[in-house]
């Protein structure tokens, strides 16, 4: 009998799979974005406007991850973008293996941008690397500016924070500066945008960032 010291994080096997997937997507020039937020933060609505604005410049596909149902995939397909429903088999997050399966379902058609709309949840999706090139998280005004304090990991791992539903800000005590300060304390390099998917406010800055990220990924 012997003891072997491992000292490796439990998700190490997933991290390795994610690294392989990321380099395959890099070689293909496909930017995979892992879009994360709590339920109802406005992930699908943000995507609808983004697709409408950018579909003439880029080939875009969406993978909708849900525990059940295909209501989000149906909304995306109405805009003419390709969408697949990824099933998590009851799990609260997507991992690299499930992401690979969903990408295979998209077929051989080349895409410039594939968005993985992760399960609505600010905890588990942050812990599992999907192989995405960029991680984008949403926080909506009604959820409150204290969320970086409650879900620090999500804010630490995301490259971009989009504050959504800014059109309802007059009805809530959301302190934008406090929220941004808390987020940047966890993640000094975080890009932060403020948008309203309803009015289109702030979309130019977000879409400029996204367009540049897609082109940079192909370099």
């Amino acid at each position, binding site marked *: 009998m012997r003891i072997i010291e491992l*000292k490796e*994080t439990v998700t190490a096997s997933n991290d390795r799979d994610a690294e392989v997937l990321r380099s395959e997507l890099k070689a293909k020039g496909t930017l995979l974005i892992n879009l994360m937020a709590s339920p109802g933060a406005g992930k699908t609505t943000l995507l609808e406007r983004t697709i409408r604005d950018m579909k003439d410049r880029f080939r875009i596909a969406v993978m909708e991850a849900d525990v059940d149902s295909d209501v989000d995939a149906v909304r995306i397909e109405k805009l003419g973008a390709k969408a697949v429903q990824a099933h998590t088999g009851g799990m609260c997050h997507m991992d690299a293996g499930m992401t690979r399966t969903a990408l295979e379902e998209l077929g051989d058609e080349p895409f410039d941008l594939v968005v993985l709309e992760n399960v609505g949840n600010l905890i588990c999706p942050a812990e599992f690397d999907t192989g995405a090139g960029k991680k984008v998280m949403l926080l909506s005004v009604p959820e409150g500016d204290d969320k970086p304090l409650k879900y620090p990991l999500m804010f630490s791992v995301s490259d971009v924070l989009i504050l959504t539903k800014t059109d309802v800000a007059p009805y809530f005590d959301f302190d934008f500066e406090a929220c941004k300060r808390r987020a940047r304390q966890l993640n000094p390099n975080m890009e932060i945008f403020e948008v309203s998917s309803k009015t289109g406010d702030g979309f130019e800055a977000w879409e400029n960032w996204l367009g540049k990220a897609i082109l940079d990924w192909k370099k």
Partner: protein
Amino acid sequence: MHEMGIILHLAKSLEETAAEQDIQKILRVTLQVGEVSGIMTDYFTDCWNYFRKRHPVLDTAELELETIPAVTFCSNCERTYPTVRYGRECPYCHSGETWLLRGNECIIKEIEVE
């Protein structure tokens, strides 16, 4: 749900290690689990006892959990305090500008093999 995802990855990592190092049977797995990792240890052990049966190399392996205490740092007064007892607000200066230093990890410390 969270626990199940972690167990699936844990089992996969251990199978890979066993294959690499030509291990036939793993007898015990020691994990270090942070106090605020969000893992419910009872449910986690139940998940393990269910999933280990699917892997011949793991099917009798006992899971041993060690707790890593959670510690929070206050960026206002620069002191640390136990997270579980005091939560988000610093007990010394009552600042809310506090950050978790450790306690949310889940690490495979070691395995005992035949």
